[in-house]
């Protein structure tokens, strides 16, 4: 690639990107949850409190940007024993690390599937995490669904004796469903 064309490409990109991505506000019925495995049985959890800053361009996904902050103490799994244990130091350690954060660094396409690449910071540990993104336009906005699978031990969630994956599975499926409204 010659120098002028590289410059032109970069210029075109720099000019084009901000122009396409639309900012959205996130509706109250949005959910952010996970499915994990305990003693061979799946259970669902969700975070009642999180903030998401979403800019998305369905035509040019590479111009999009997610920045999500999750209040880890708001976790709820439908079982009081578990909900008491999860904020503790062996799991989310919310006293030291009250929030988790996910920010995208780029978007790409794998066939028809849009993939967001980014970094998740959880319990003070930063690791790259990619999300499968499904964007469905709706009246006045869109529904944005994201999904991925994490390994809880990558983030030290369930440390010490709880690291036993024969009782608590290592893989955790994460799913989000955001109801987006276009910002004026």
């Amino acid at each position, binding site marked *: 690639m010659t120098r002028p064309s590289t410059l032109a490409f970069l210029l075109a990109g720099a000019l084009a990107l901000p122009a396409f991505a639309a900012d959205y506000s996130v509706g109250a019925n949005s959910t952010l949850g996970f499915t994990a495995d*305990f*003693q*061979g*049985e799946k259970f669902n959890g969700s975070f009642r409190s999180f903030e998401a800053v979403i800019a998305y361009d369905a035509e040019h996904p590479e111009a999009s940007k997610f920045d999500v902050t999750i209040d880890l103490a708001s976790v709820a799994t*439908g*079982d009081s*024993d578990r909900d008491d*244990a999860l904020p503790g130091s062996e799991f989310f350690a919310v006293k030291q690390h009250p929030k988790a954060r996910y920010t995208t660094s780029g978007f790409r396409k794998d066939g028809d599937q849009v993939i967001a690449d980014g970094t998740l910071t959880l319990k003070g540990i930063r690791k790259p995490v990619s999300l499968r993104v499904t964007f469905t336009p709706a009246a006045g906005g869109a529904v944005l669904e994201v999904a991925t699978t994490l390994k809880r031990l990558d983030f030290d969630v369930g440390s010490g*004796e*709880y690291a*036993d994956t*024969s*009782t608590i599975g290592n893989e955790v499926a994460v799913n989000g469903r955001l109801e987006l409204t276009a910002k004026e």
Partner: protein
Amino acid sequence: MAWRSDRLRWGAAAKGLHWLMALGIIGAGVLGLVMTGMDRGMAKINAFAIHKSIGLTVLALFVLRLAWRFFDRRPADLPMPRLQRIAAHAVHGILYLLMLAIPLAGWLYNSARGYPLQWFKQFNLPALVAKNEGLAEFAIAAHVWLFWILVAVLVAHVGGALLHHFFERDDTLRRMLPFARLRHPPSGESP
């Protein structure tokens, strides 16, 4: 030793089921008493998991035992006063009921509380009912009360067997022991 029971002795199958279940019931009972007082942690989670796994095993063996009973003959009652015989059979009947009811009440509690049920980390069993706190409280109360009734009935069962063995000096216990010889083999039969 024959698999099937005969007129005098319990067969290997009946003996095996009896002693395996005795071991399981004592193990699950002791673990059950210890585990509830444990501090929260993996050891407690594992203790509950093993308690449930043993309980399920006892339940499965009970079904097997009941089925086997229909194929197998029972040794004849040894000579004893009528009231004693009625008491012994009543104790056996109650034990059979409890061996079924206690694991089932535990399973019911586990289901109503929404806990998973796994057999020695090998496979999972379904919930008997949907999550229901009121039912869970009833089921755990039944599980615990029936257990204490079991303890009382076992005192009668074991006490009766020991009385027969040491005081009546008959073969009541010996014919259920794995390798013991009978004290009073019928004439003409090798012990």
